[in-house]
């Protein structure tokens, strides 16, 4: 009986320890998710009329919505354009500033600076780079005698311009994780490899890169979430234009919810985003986790 009581007490103790996290997660993650899911099954009621349950009607509309597919394709290109590039760049920068070089601290800080800037501030800086008449890039091109490009106004270039800015902003952030992982690696590994005449290239692919796999996996998931999550720069740079050329999923959700006041349709898109993200993350973990060595 006493034993049972002490067991119960331990369970209660554990439950109490979990409580703060559980309350926070439920309030700000699980409940909104469920509400969103429910909302996506209704049509909005205008002028005080009650909302109307329509089942999967919103999802049917979504499938027929060409703008949605355009935005989804944009987001895919955006993800493919930003994730591999920023990760490769982050790794290269981390390897560079992990080596002995003069002014190492300064270079590290310089690489990290874009990360400290708020997205809005960074976007404003890039506005100045991209501006058609007085922008830095076009001035430089002009100095070389080339005609300028309308970086943000030309539908065929605008998305690439947004991608370049995102890579600039994210690479420094991911570099910090790689740098931390590199500094955790024992220098004797390199020495042991050197004694066998292992080339730098071979050492990177046979030792450094595999040992960085946990970091790469972490950064990959983060980069994926960011590709869908971060839209602040669109407010400053393009507002999704021209002609939805730079519109991304979350910005489209925002437009639907707060410009077109179609909250239930916004909820529908959100549910689709959540499902896609969950699937991709699961696949990534399932495939990469098996090949990843955790220390």
């Amino acid at each position, binding site marked *: 009986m006493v034993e049972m009581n002490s067991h119960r007490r331990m369970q209660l103790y554990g439950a109490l320890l979990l409580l703060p996290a559980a309350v926070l997660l439920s309030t700000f993650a699980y409940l909104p998710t469920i509400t969103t899911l429910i909302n996506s099954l209704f049509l909005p009621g205008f002028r005080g009329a009650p909302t109307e349950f329509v089942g999967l009607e919103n999802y049917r509309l979504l499938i027929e919505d060409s703008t949605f597919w355009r935005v989804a394709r944009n987001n895919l290109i955006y993800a493919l354009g930003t994730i591999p590039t920023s990760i490769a760049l982050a790794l290269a920068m981390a390897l560079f500033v992990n080596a002995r070089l003069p002014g190492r601290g300064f270079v590290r800080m310089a690489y990290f600076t874009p990360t400290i800037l708020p997205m809005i501030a960074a976007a404003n800086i890039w506005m100045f780079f991209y501006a058609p008449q007085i922008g830095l890039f076009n001035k430089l091109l002009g100095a070389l005698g080339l005609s300028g490009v309308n970086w943000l106004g030309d539908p065929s270039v605008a998305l690439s311009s947004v991608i370049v800015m995102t890579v600039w902003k994210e690479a420094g952030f991911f570099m910090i994780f790689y740098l931390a992982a590199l500094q955790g690696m*024992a220098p*004797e*590994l390199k*020495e*042991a*490899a*050197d*004694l*066998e*005449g*292992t*080339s730098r290239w*071979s050492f990177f692919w*046979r*030792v450094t890169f*595999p*040992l960085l*796999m946990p970091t790469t996996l972490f950064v990959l998931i983060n980069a994926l979430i960011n590709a869908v999550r971060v839209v602040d720069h669109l407010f400053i740079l393009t507002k999704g234009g021209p002609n939805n050329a730079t519109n991304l999923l979350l910005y489209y959700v925002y437009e639907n919810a707060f410009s077109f006041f179609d909250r239930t349709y916004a909820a529908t898109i959100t549910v689709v985003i959540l499902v896609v993200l969950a699937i991709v993350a699961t696949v990534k973990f399932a495939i990469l986790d098996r090949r990843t*060595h955790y*220390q």
Partner: protein
Amino acid sequence: MNHASQQRIRLEGVTKRWGDSRGVDGISFDVDPGQFVILLGPSGCGKSTTLRMIAGLEQATEGCIHIGERDVTRLPPGDRGLSMVFQSYALFPHLDVADNIVFGLRSRKVPRAERRERLQRVAELVDLGAYLDRKPAQLSGGQRQRVALARAIISEHPICLMDEPLSNLDARLRGEMRREIKALQTRLGMTVVYVTHDQVEAMSMGDRVILMQDGIIVQDDSPDDLYNRPATAFAASFIGSPAMNLVHLDAAGGKAVIDGEPSVAVAPVEASNGQLGLRPEDIVVLGPDDAGLPARVIDGEYLGADTILRLAVGSQVLRARLPGKRPLADGQRCRLGWAPAAAHLFGDDGARRDDLTPLTVSAAVGRPSGDGGHSASPSPSGTSPGIPS
């Protein structure tokens, strides 16, 4: 391992400086093929730096290093034809034992079939056959050490450098691995340069011990000579457990006496201001009425096979190792004696003084140092003519 002519290592005036501080200060020595040479010294004495310069992991600031006929001073580590065992083992955590062992062979583009064949042989040699598909994290400390050894052996380089390879192991395993490494070295005829701060490893494994202090070589000798004829007071204090007693000498009555105990002369007057060194096992404790050096027991430490007594002599403290359990009570008075040959004299600069002959303290003890059997029973009195009283 049959290029015997390529195995000789020669260091000439090798120096390593970082800014103003000298890590290694112009040291020279030769290592003959097949020799097991120990670099011994306290931490910070430059022994690891010396080893790393031989390996090529550090660049020598001055001097040159030859391996065989080649000047390797500026060669990268991979071109020097040597292997190394690290203190931390430096195993690749993501590779299994087999891949760890053949890592170097893959770097050197050894064909797969030969790799497998050599792996088989080496795994058997270090008794790792059953663990080839395990990751280093799944191995015990001793097994990891074996993997590191296997990696060094499989390269078939004639020279193997070892940087404190046993310091991460517990005491029992260390004893086992000491014997194993020594046996492997003898069997394969490897030339080994072995860094350690552990005098037991140095004494038991080395054909030759190079004792270093503050970046210079203090003594380069066989373990036997290092123990029995230490070149300096530092060498004397570094070897032996407990270490050799070093007591300060003063002048009194035209002779050198132990500081604070002027009644018994221990050395000629020229030895005063220097130090007298006595191995704990060379000190014989005599009865209080015997001839000898007056002393008082401070305390005793019973270790099973023997007892370490701390003895107060004048202002100095001596340790004596006596076999078995000693019934001497704390505070008891006694006399000490030792064979003159067991006494070592060091000048005030710490260097050994072979020009002086220690005096006989107690004629009852005449055996030369190194003989077994400590006479603990009070010797017959009245047979000690040479003893000043």
